[in-house]
């Protein structure tokens, strides 16, 4: 049982990283980015292509792939900031479904629909205690989730850029009147989250199914994780991701409920929504 729970941690860390990115986007640029995982996937696939087809060294290919993901995210951000700057969060989020489908199709066209032969950067067990193995990927993703959340928090609280970003997200018009330039800042946020997702996906891709669809659809559990923090709180997004991963690992160990595992993120979302809406009265919540 414990081994099962620990086994789910690697996935949990990944959900947490993506959940942190989603939370960040929702707070700072008013968007739920459905293409979050897809941009990371496309960057990771590009990296594989650079390494295998062009023959670049792995580190250089990876760096280029991460950059590609960042630029893709920035391009989507540019669209949002240029043509949808006044639109509602719902509209801006709906727009990102387009890039999600586009990126999946593009990767089919460019890289084929087979899984990519990733060369693992980190692989194998990290350490074991009491017969429970913890893989290196688990350590990496969980650490990355926590570090990302902490760094983002420090940047937002302690730096000038962070203050400007918070101002923009809370009072966009006032901030612009004060002379804070919104477009470059929001595009920078897109770029950074694109980079983070690509790094996270590159870490996990070698150790799991890595075709375009399954990687892009990581957005579902990531969204469930972000929902725990209401798309506002980074710490809860991390907790949500880890809990979801551990639950997935646990559920698979118990025959009676193993079937639930396939739609665990959806269950998680439904339960959270029911819980958060528990005090709402019908008329007000409608």
């Amino acid at each position, binding site marked *: 049982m414990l081994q099962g729970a620990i086994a789910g941690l690697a996935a949990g860390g990944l959900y947490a990283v993506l959940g942190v990115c989603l939370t960040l986007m929702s707070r700072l640029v008013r968007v739920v980015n459905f293409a979050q995982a897809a941009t990371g996937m496309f960057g990771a696939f590009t990296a594989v292509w650079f390494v295998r087809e062009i023959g670049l060294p792995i580190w250089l290919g990876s760096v280029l792939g991460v950059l590609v993901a960042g630029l893709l995210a920035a391009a989507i951000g540019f669209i949002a900031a240029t043509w949808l700057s006044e639109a509602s969060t719902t509209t801006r989020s709906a727009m990102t479904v387009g890039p999600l489908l586009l990126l999946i199709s593009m990767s089919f066209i460019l890289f084929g629909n087979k899984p990519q032969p990733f060369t693992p950067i980190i692989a194998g067990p990290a350490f074991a205690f009491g017969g429970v193995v913890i893989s290196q990927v688990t350590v990496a993703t969980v650490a990355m989730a926590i570090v990302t959340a902490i760094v983002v928090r420090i940047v937002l609280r302690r730096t000038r850029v962070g203050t400007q970003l918070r101002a923009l997200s809370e009072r966009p018009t006032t901030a612009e009147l004060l002379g804070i330039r919104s477009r470059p800042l929001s595009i920078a946020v897109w770029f950074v989250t694109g980079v983070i997702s690509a790094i996270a996906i590159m870490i996990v891709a070698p*150790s*799991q199914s890595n075709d375009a669809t399954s990687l892009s659809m990581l957005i579902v559990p990531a969204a469930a994780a972000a929902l725990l923090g209401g798309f506002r709180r980074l710490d809860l997004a991390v907790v949500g991701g880890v809990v979801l991963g551990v639950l997935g*690992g646990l559920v698979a160990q118990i025959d009676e409920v193993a079937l639930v595992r396939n739609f665990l993120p959806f269950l998680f979302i439904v339960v959270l929504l029911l819980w958060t809406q528990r005090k709402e009265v019908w008329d007000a919540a409608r």
Partner: protein
Amino acid sequence: MNKRASGTAALIAVAALTLAGCAGGDEGSGGEGAPIVVGSVNTISGPATFPEASLAAAAVFDAFNEAGGLDGRKIDYKTLDDKGDPATATASARELVGSDGAVALVGSASLIECEINAKYYEQEGILSMPGIGVDTGCFASDNISPANVGPFNDMTLTLQYGSEVLGLDDICILLEIAGSTRPTYQAAIDKWTEITGKEPKYVDDTVPYGASDYTPYIVKARDQGCKALAINPVEPDAIGQVKAANAQGWDDVTWLYLTSVYSENFADAIDNAGAGIYVPAEFYPFTDDNEINADWRELMEANDIPLTSFSQGGYLAAKYFIEVLEGIDGDITRESVSEALQSMEPIENPMVGTPYAFGTQNTAGWPIILKSGTNAWEKVAEDWLRIGE
């Protein structure tokens, strides 16, 4: 263009149109010299795709046409894409059988088509020889007889190889179930139990298609003390499963997979194969450079078709069909083709272990292995492995 030439061109066009009109009769029996219409329904786009089988069949028919066809009559091969969508699969079959007047279906490879269209084929009295039968329906209808072994007999074979040849106990079975395949897989497992008297340690049929992380399933199997895992995944999932075991440091597990993972791509992706990945290949192993596959290989390379088991299946289905076609005396109609197929003598081909006759099951696979660190498939036997031998 001067006036006379354009007049001539118009005449030729009219004549061509008229002829085409004649040829487009029902049942594909357009008199002397009209093309023989052969169809196939394939999943070419969608979540899981099988494009190679019909491409390979098309290459065989093209070569046949170039060599003069059947006494000057060409084969008009029409392939349709069902997109893995039931409605499209239904419509595709009706288009080929109803309006194009196909005499038979050859070289199909679809995720869902057999089960959906079997009844319709029975009703229309048309036979189908899929290159690759995937779903349960391909192996359960009197009107459909694939060229390949299929995942169910392949499951029996891979279990038999694990327990009898490798001498493994504690084999656990993990199943990815799509549609109504569960009982058919159970029957395949029961067949193995019947032959060998051995039981699986446990069967887990909750393994999802296209999951991102299979670690929990692998951990469970390890905790239960499985020595070997027999699984029926599509290629991407298989890579995920092997990698999950690598990450857990589980290096002494034996993998008993099916032909779905037999590809160069899979071999490239797997560095650590535990105690070995074993597959009973449904056709003579194409990674082995051998005289047996030479003609197929040459044809595929000339047409830029990937060298996979799927293209072997499509190639064979088309070859069998041509052989049967050449043996027909008199008119080539749907009735005469169906009759010839049902009464055909078994055709031997070194690429398969069971001679092909319409309606008989193929029950032989060639055992191959992928060892750690080699990134290449190798043969582990010198002959076919047959169910129950």
